[in-house]
């Protein structure tokens, strides 16, 4: 496979000479262990590089990275939302990486323009509707949700979730702050209940008849469709998935991804890990284990995901979302979206 086996060999020798110990890479990750660990194990099998893992929430990892500064043992930071990747970049805990492999594997819209981080799997935040109470065509865009005809019919989780913050950040980018605030106000007026629970809870609430339309990430729905619990599958069966704004800019996209830490002691191994995660094997594992969209265009979708059909996603660079997040939170506060 390698184009230059000689240089790889040289690199390997150089590596052995400098470290004189088994190669390793230290990862701070906010992805769930059960999703990441199999992929990391595959990386170790292929490269013989040991991976040391510290899993925690993004906020905790970021605080630790910030206060550790250049002494941090972290080589790679992995997060589940672009808002956090952006925050890490702004906090100065990431370093830019140039890699032909990453640039080839990952479409530009899912990468930081300066190479501070890369998206490793994509998800869409879309609409879910009650099949028996919402007619096709009744709703087709995010903007529709602010229409008074949906009064008391919408379920969505709290605006403390970065997924909602990124969604509104995206609307701010395409509609401008005033229109985005009007939209948020309209949605609040239409809510069936005070925002509560996670994304799965919103889909389940539609199935239970508490509301008619919900906003949620795609992979949660996939998780319910493939759940071992009959109750989850029954609920998912009563609810339809709708990719919004297909005639216009497309559905809101977000990524989970990672970057190389500023003080990485194992920079080469760190880059190698990111490259591996963007490669065909790892992309297949991500797609299958969590019903996400691979960023590598040639990777195959999980059967559940493929069944949702092709769709159009927004083409703005996801880096835009991170920049608008603080403004989004203020708007949420002002319109009373808890």
């Amino acid at each position, binding site marked *: 496979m390698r184009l230059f086996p000689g240089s790889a060999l040289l690199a390997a020798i150089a590596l052995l000479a400098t470290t004189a110990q088994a190669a390793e890479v*230290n990862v701070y990750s906010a992805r*769930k*262990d*059960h999703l990441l660990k199999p992929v990391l194990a595959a990386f170790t099998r292929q490269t013989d590089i040991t991976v*040391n*893992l*510290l*899993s*925690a*929430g993004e*906020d*905790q*990892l970021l*605080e*630790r990275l910030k*206060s*550790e*500064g*250049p*002494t*941090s*043992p972290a080589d790679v930071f992995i997060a589940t939302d672009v808002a956090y990747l952006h*925050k890490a970049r702004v906090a100065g805990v990431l370093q830019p990486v140039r890699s032909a492999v990453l640039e080839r594997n990952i479409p530009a819209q899912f990468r930081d323009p300066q190479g501070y981080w890369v998206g490793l799997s994509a998800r869409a935040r879309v609409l879910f509707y009650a099949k028996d109470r919402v007619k096709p065509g009744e709703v087709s865009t995010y903007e529709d949700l602010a229409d008074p005809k949906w009064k008391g019919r919408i379920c969505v989780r*709290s*605006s*403390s979730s970065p997924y909602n*913050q990124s969604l509104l950040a995206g609307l701010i980018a395409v509609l401008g702050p005033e229109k985005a605030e009007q939209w948020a106000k309209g949605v609040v007026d239409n809510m069936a209940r*005070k*925002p*509560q*629970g*996670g*994304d*799965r*809870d919103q889909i*389940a*609430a539609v199935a*239970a*008849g*508490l509301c008619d339309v919900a906003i949620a990430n795609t992979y*949660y729905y996939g998780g319910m469709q493939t759940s071992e*619990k009959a*109750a989850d599958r029954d*609920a998912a069966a009563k609810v339809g998935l709708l990719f919004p704004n297909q005639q216009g800019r497309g559905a809101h996209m977000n990524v989970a991804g990672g970057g190389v830490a500023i003080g990485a002691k194992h920079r080469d191994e760190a880059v190698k890990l990111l490259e591996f995660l963007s490669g065909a094997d790892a992309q297949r594992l991500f797609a299958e284990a969590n019903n996400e969209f691979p960023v590598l265009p040639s990777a195959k979708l999980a059967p559940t995901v493929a069944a949702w059909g092709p769709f159009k996603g927004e083409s703005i660079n996801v880096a835009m979302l991170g920049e608008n*997040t*603080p403004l989004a*939170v*203020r708007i*949420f*506060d*002002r319109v*009373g979206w*808890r």
Partner: protein
Amino acid sequence: MAVAALVALPVLVVAANLLVPSAEVWEHLAATVLPSYVANSLWLMLGVGGAVAVGGVGTAWLVTMCRVPCHRTLEWALLLPMAMPTYVVAYTYTGLLDFAGPVQSTLRALFGWHSARDYWFPEIRSLGGAIAVMAMVLYPYVYMLARAAFLEQSVCALEASRTLGRRPWRAFLEVALPLARPAIAAGVALALMETLNDFGTVHYFAVDTFTTGIYRTWLGLGQPAVAAQLGAVLMLFVLALVLVERMSRGAARFHHTTGRYRQLPRLPLPPLGAAAALAFCALPLVLGFLLPAAVLAGWAVQAGWRRNLGGDFLHLAGNSLILAAVAGVVAALVALPLTYAQRLRPTRLVKACVRVAGLGYAVPGSVIAVGTLVPLTAIDRSLGALVLTGTIVALVYAYLVRFLAVSANAVEASLGKVTPSMEAAARTLGETALGTLRRVHLPLVRTSLLSAVLLVFVDVMKELPATLIMRPFNFDTLATRTFTLASDERLADAAAPALAIMLVGLLPVVLLSRAITRSRPGAQP
């Protein structure tokens, strides 16, 4: 002094943020969300405080002083809810009572309802639900301390009141209760601090409190300084509460003057009264422990024990146990000289240090964890290498910062048993301060010291934010495993490790209860 200062350091780091100017963000908060944070936090404290006081004191009095059926079992069983992490109980009740849960499903099947629009059912995810869940899990703090206080009360004081014509009920209200007041206040204070620092439960129940506000300001608005300011305000509030309680107690001090103790005769109850008393005592036990534990067990079986515990269960449990045991012992070892110094030489400075060091308990876990990171990484950076951060030492330090108040409270209460006259006698007979501590205090407070260790042990078993942020690579505990599974909305999968936390926590809780029973003056050790 130095130790207290070391423990107080992270709290001061948080408080230092008060000096960062940020009027504009405060205006935004005050105009939008702050009023609801304050109102919800106050209601929550009022509700939880009232419920744990009534439940804790009531159960303690009944099982200690009255002939309640099965009181021997109830004595220790009433402590069991302590082993439950509050957020786990919140998960179980939501699973039980929400739309898809068995209760509503059964009702629907019974009455032929189809959708949520056909009937009304109380919303578990609400302020009321949060109060109920927290009270169920936190009342043991009051129960434990109130019971210890009732046990310590000499039969003399109570019988004197009986001789003077008080009926049992009034003896309780007018003699036993005022005598136990410092202990009850300490228990309620602990419960309220837990209420204030809780994030998991209120977040899950969609109740916006000061704590969720701190998280949102920090993470969403990207204003860590303002978040820390909110945290500092919270600390001041707690400090004010503690002071108010102390001032209302005034100069009153309660020491027994006689060393003569006798087993108190239990008050007989009429059959109906006994049944009512049993129900009163069994209710918190069932709601706070048995029911959630049963739900967890059901989920764990349903999701498959083996898959979620995996091969590393013993490893996880071992990590949790070792951490909790080490932290418990260290906290007690630190708390003893601190409280002793405070008693020996109650200067303003010593007192202030101990108070500030204790505040770590009331601050939301994540905030204080970050506060702990700052001094640790500062040392590491000055050394140019990672010596402390990400080691077990750092973790134990973090636990100390968080839970010193718990062990200090227990030690302080037990040192109170050593009357000033005993101390004076020892010193008059030529013993040094240290010698008095070793030869007089230690033997007397040994069992209470054990309860200080066990209390911190149970808290560390459940602790999450500091463990998450400070732990070394490839190091997991039962709590972190529960978190990773639960935060992915996979509650059923999280049931097995959560159940394990509870089971491992049971042993110290039972030990704790025995320690309290033995602490009765005059009881056989």
